[in-house]
């Protein structure tokens, strides 16, 4: 018998707002992507110097996860290698791709840099979250046109039912110019929670995703 999965927490960063479990925690109207990410980092008093070296995609995924995981105690409740991170977006690492391209656009001004190039891979955001939270489990980055609740509802249960993960940080983290959107869920087996916020079904994932 397969265990029922629930969304035990979720955090959304988009349109200048940070929403955690449905509650608006922070708002910074008029900010662009970089300003918003920095303002949110300061607001939540996160102290992690490496943050400032990250690209925008990594900053967005990192911040969303920091706020999502606060007080969830997943590190003591689950083994590090049983926590998975499954993320997806539409633009892969396009923002960093453009930045790296700028460094090689002219032969007279050729300055490719490893600190930019390393972020031209979307799964590096998973690496950053793993380093901060000491997570060693399954990681996978999918690229799809738009957030697809059906994909997640079909894919995640297999990881739980096949004894690959006991807990998963799962969702969407996307940056393209001044458009950014991150909606990340904490997924657990219902029996390991107090019932969760929503069931991990297509319709409930969809309704949590669109919640303002």
């Amino acid at each position: 018998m397969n265990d029922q999965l629930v969304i035990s927490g979720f955090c959304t960063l988009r349109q200048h707002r940070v929403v955690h479990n449905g509650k608006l925690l922070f708002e910074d109207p008029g900010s662009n992507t970089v300003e918003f990410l920095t303002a949110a980092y300061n607001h939540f008093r996160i102290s992690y110097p490496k943050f400032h070296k990250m690209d925008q995609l990594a900053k967005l995924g990192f911040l969303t996860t920091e706020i999502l995981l606060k007080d969830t105690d997943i590190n003591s409740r689950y083994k590090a290698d049983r926590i998975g991170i499954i993320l997806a977006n539409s633009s892969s690492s396009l923002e960093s791709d453009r930045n790296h391209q700028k460094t090689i656009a002219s032969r007279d001004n050729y300055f490719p840099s490893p600190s930019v190039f390393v972020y031209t891979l979307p799964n590096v955001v998973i690496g950053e979250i793993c380093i901060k939270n000491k997570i060693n489990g399954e990681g996978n980055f999918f690229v799809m046109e738009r957030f697809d609740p059906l994909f997640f509802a079909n894919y995640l249960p297999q990881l739980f039912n096949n004894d690959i993960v006991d807990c998963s940080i799962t969702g969407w983290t996307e940056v393209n110019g001044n458009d950014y959107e991150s909606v990340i869920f904490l997924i657990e087996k219902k029996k390991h929670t107090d019932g969760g916020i929503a069931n991990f079904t297509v319709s409930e994932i969809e309704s949590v995703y669109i919640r303002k």
Partner: protein
Amino acid sequence: MAIEVTVKSANIITSLGFTTSENAQALLAGKTGIMLSSDAKLAPTPFYASLVNTRHLSERFSQIADPGKYTRFEQLAICSVNDALLNADIDIADRKTIFILSTTKGNIDLLESGSTGNSLFLWDTARVLRKHFRLYNEPLVISDACISGIQAITTAVRLLKAGSFDTCIINGTDIISEFVLSGFNSFKSLSSGPCRPFDLSRDGLSLGEGSGTLILSTLKGDMAEDSVAAGDGFSTNDANHISGPSRTGEGLLLAIKRALRDFPLSIGYISAHGTATPYNDEMESIAINRAGLQNIPVNSFKGYWGHTLGAAGVIESVMSIWSLQNGVLFGTLGFKEPGVSMPLNIITTSQKKDIRSCLKIASGFGGCNAAITFFRK
């Protein structure tokens, strides 16, 4: 009865050939496709890389479709999938068939030309393939740096075992571009000549381009067709550094242990990542030893066609499956003298050897590691 996922067909395209058997013949002859190139469009100074001949690719592709309507990336992927389909009795348009594209950078060469269309989006590239092959389902796209290919196969096995689909076509493709060359160069990770995996004098990796296709299915075919099956794959994260492998090999060790957890056979052969960077090969030697697999024959294919990035996991799995089917293990081109701190049973020259099972491993940027098994039935 457990569901078995078997290999229906495969293809690889590298600088050494447009079919798996062309590649196998080149490998047996000890050829490398890694050459000194002085293409000013790709790099300001000459560089070593394994490049697929563009004119040959266009000629091949023109037998399938109009090369003017497809990008170089798409031509490579379509040629590879097309060849694999020739030898597979499957219905690609079936609603129980899923396509998975594995790539790190897709059409990244178009970024230079200031392309603003959808071609830079990996999902759009996958959709071009969907349209060409008239696939029923929207393809999945996986982008996990250098473990992308193994991740795509792993994901396919999971989807097939769950019964979500009957057949999965996995394609891994990446092309060499100025974008990628300049990036690896900035990391100072490129070799001064053709790369030398696990060798004492190794000084970095050689980049390569190519495409690999693996068709897996749970549908029963004839015995010969079903001779090799795929085991379960796993991935892990080092949680240590985004651009360097862990010194302890802990993450890769964990992936190997998990891949072998329910595997009933002993491993007969290891297809290593073996990029020939000092750190990667050292880390792999530690992980393989910690897993107790140091006596198992191990090779790296990177000396033949370089590091094909998001295609590597698929291309090298296909070649490893060929080894299982044909009883031949390939030598590690470029390797002469052991240059890692832990002992390994490195295959130096290609040889006949009857093996039943294979472990494929890889690690990549972002601290990711992956392992999967294949076995002969």
